[in-house]
């Protein structure tokens, strides 16, 4: 009986897991930023810079423009100034560093950093109930944004 109960429970867990995170995807609580970098892709599927460019601007997704200005997206009217400008960002950071920054910049900079962790469960208190345990972006959306950012050179 006990064995069966454990089996049922673990199957249920596996089911939940596969719904939340596609197979081959690193779950947000398993991501390990080492020396300010994340060498391995979160998904194993190469990021799409064209998609990343859209996700970067989309107010409901990355909304990166809310805080960062970037000349590559001049067609967008409003660029924020809360964070640094991103022109030439790929000259200053490697792909692995960019990935780590998007995932959870607090691990690189400081706890005081305003930038949210886009693939992190290191979040604030009283998270909206339907968002508990969920990340701002999916792993693939992070990869897309990283692929886009690596094209931003001076």
């Amino acid at each position, binding site marked *: 009986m006990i064995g069966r109960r454990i089996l049922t429970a673990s199957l249920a867990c596996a089911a939940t897991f596969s719904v939340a995170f596609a197979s081959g995807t690193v779950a947000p609580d398993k991501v390990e930023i080492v020396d300010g970098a994340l060498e391995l892709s979160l998904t194993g599927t190469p990021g799409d810079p064209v998609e990343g460019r859209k996700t970067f601007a989309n107010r409901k997704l990355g909304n990166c423009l809310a805080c960062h*200005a970037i000349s590559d997206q001049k067609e967008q009217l409003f660029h924020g100034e809360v964070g640094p*400008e991103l022109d030439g960002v790929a000259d200053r950071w490697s792909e692995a560093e960019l990935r780590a920054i998007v995932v959870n910049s607090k691990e690189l900079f400081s706890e005081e950093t305003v930038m949210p962790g886009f693939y992190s469960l290191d979040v*604030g*208190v*009283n*998270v909206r109930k339907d968002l508990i345990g969920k990340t701002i972006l999916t792993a693939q959306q992070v990869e897309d944004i990283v692929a886009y950012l690596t094209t931003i050179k001076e």
Partner: protein
Amino acid sequence: MKKFGKVGAVLVTLGALSAVALAGGPVDQQLVIDGEIEMITRTEAPDGHPLDEVISGWHYRTGETRALEADTFENPGMLFVEQGEAAWNKIEGTEGKSCASCHGDASESMAGIGAQYPKWDADSGKPINVELQINKCRTENMGAEPLPFDKGGQKELTAYIKHQSLGTPVSIDLDAGDMQSWWKKGEEVYYTRTGQLNLSCASCHEQNNGNYIRADHLSQGNINGFPTYRLKQGALVSVHNRFRGCIRDTRAEFPAAFSDELMALEVYVTWRGSGLSVETPGVRQ
């Protein structure tokens, strides 16, 4: 250490670039309402304040929005203040009284009063704001039902009462009762990061006031203009409505209006704007 050196250098360089590319910061102008009332919209911060200067949100708005507030005929919030005046004179409840029955002419009895709220309420052992003071009067003296949050003319009457302090510097008494501990609790709320976006009030209004967040020019978040007319909503907006809206935008569950948490925050944030003129009804984006 190498990494942090690099980060620091990048931030310094880009900070300089931003200043050139975007015109942030508070505008240098004086607010004079109807060419008569000289408003204090910038003043030295009170002791213990994290910023050197306290600045009204008026300085962070566009020229058009600032002009609307400088002229009471143009100010869309004044329509609601007039509705508040009607509410002041309206008889309600079993005692057959209006606000005016006891308080008479609000321009005399309420002059400067709104600038002192929230204040200590010994009866409830908590701070009380104008909205709750109105409800206390209604239930204790008028025999009327308390007004529900943001309804039944609550915003309008609150705006009318605070408008009687137009130009008076915000000054709350933190020595009364247990106000200190509510201030302390409010400070804690102010610096607590909430929601999936992991932001506190300070993330935007202390660390980044003067910066643009997309099309929004971040102010210090002072509340001396509340209830304020917000062009975005085309309506008068109460302080607790705005608190809840800000917290909601961090993708968090938000506290109830007039909850202890938000009352503490109102005490603390009001204090942060000490010395600024009451602008009610302010006009904002």
